[in-house]
């Protein structure tokens, strides 16, 4: 299953490293990544492949949220289908 991971935070050092390490620990492959700065806010969006991830989706979502909160990052994970449905005919 493919999913979109989005990370929002006030910009600081090491955000990308922290999040990609979390993903790697869960056997999640990053297929594509983009980052933007909106004023002082950092937004990172990743397309990931969950095929080898051992955790069920709900546990993974919870873990990312909790681990994100420890560093004041707002991390969401959503199945990619919702974005396709909404923005592509």
């Amino acid at each position, binding site marked *: 299953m493919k999913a*979109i991971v*989005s990370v929002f935070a006030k910009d600081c050092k090491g955000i990308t490293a922290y999040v990609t390490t979390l993903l790697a620990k869960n056997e999640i492959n990053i*297929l*594509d*990544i*983009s980052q*933007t700065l909106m004023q002082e806010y950092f*937004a990172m*969006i990743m*397309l990931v492949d969950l095929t080898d991830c051992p955790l069920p*989706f*709900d546990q993974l*979502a919870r873990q990312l949220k909790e681990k994100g909160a420890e560093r004041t990052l707002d991390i*969401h*994970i*959503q*199945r*990619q*289908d*919702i*974005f*396709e*449905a*909404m*923005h*592509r005919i």
Partner: protein
Amino acid sequence: MSYLINSSEILQTIEMIDQQHLDVRTITMGISLLDCADRDIKVCCQRVYDKICALAHRLVDTGCAIEQEFGIPIVNKRIAVSPISMVAAACDSEDYVPLARALDRAAQAVGVNFIGGFSALTHKGFTRSDRLLIQSIPQALTETELVCSSVNVASTRAGINMDAVARMGQIIRQTADISPMGCAKLVVFANAVEDNPFMAGAFHGVGEPECVINVGVSGPGVVAHALKACKGQPFDVVAETVKKTAFKITRMGQLVAQEASRRLHVPFGVVDLSLAPTPAIGDSVAEILEIMGLEKCGGHGTTAALALLNDAVKKGGSMASSHVGGLSGAFIPVSEDAGMISAVESGALSIDKLEAMTCVCSVGLDMIAVPGDTSAEIIAAIIADEAAIGVVNNKTTAVRLIPAKGKTVGDRIDFGGLLGSAPVMPLHGGSPAEFIARGGRIPAPLHSLKN
């Protein structure tokens, strides 16, 4: 990103969900209970309970899993059942309250927010069972927490059953005397639809399959946000913007509906293209009308603005879904919309303007608090007016009035949660008692010679 979906689109979706209150308002499972009939009401109740639990036991968990995976809130998981007046017709009991209790227990057991279908279809006349069901409504709604009731009193093909209209005036009056909250769970319809996923009017129509999944989408906040960007633009731009936004909202609803249908092994019925407000600030249909350029919802121009909104929502939404149905349109429930509440409190929005608005939008006079001493005849006359609008214009209309016990104009009644709170609205004087006492049927309207 090199991938097909670009970052700005992803951010737009996340912003819609996080800041503009985008959600799927309800996944509603329709269940036929016609095979639960029995002469003994106890047996009938047990069959009803068992069948609902068997078919819907995974509904809430499945809804929560979809919510989690797609990251889109699914606010309500609900059940609609066959009109109970049909299910209970074979019973030799004269009291249908035990069936309402069985529905309530089943709803509690599977964990849904509401169960609809304590209903009767009386647009052309009453069966014995319809009369018994209607008589049970006040007690059924008071004794149960999650059961919703609806009665269809008119249709374009049959006309208006004025005996049913008069009876429902009395029933609303009686229910209000016991518990105003009961009235929030009771709708009187003209041209009721069989696949409506929204409460309190949902029931599983006789033309429906054994079990079905219908989804109601929402998103006034998203439409309001999109329209803020077209300030001063002509109406062509406004209509296009609403259509595009409704398309996106509905596609999301269609995706959720298909996924729920696949996981539950239940056929997908319809997506109801609705703009259903909540009491939250920024999730208001009234606000959309004001963004279009009205100083206050309820002023002159409101009906035209709502007509445009309602039509554009349907046009955008119908392309986004394979099957569209239910009520489909903008809802204007006063207590559930912060902008409507504010418009009533400021004196800008009257019951007459609300009635005019119901000519061009989904449903009707919805969640309106009226003085506690409003007579059954006045309530019946309000129902008759609204039914006439529905019957003549070939659309669904409904009345959900709450006579606020012990309260008068200017007071406020609180329902809590999504039902919100409502200021008590003034009605007109002059008794319609003699008009309502006539009974009989107002004939179906002619649908030719249209001028």
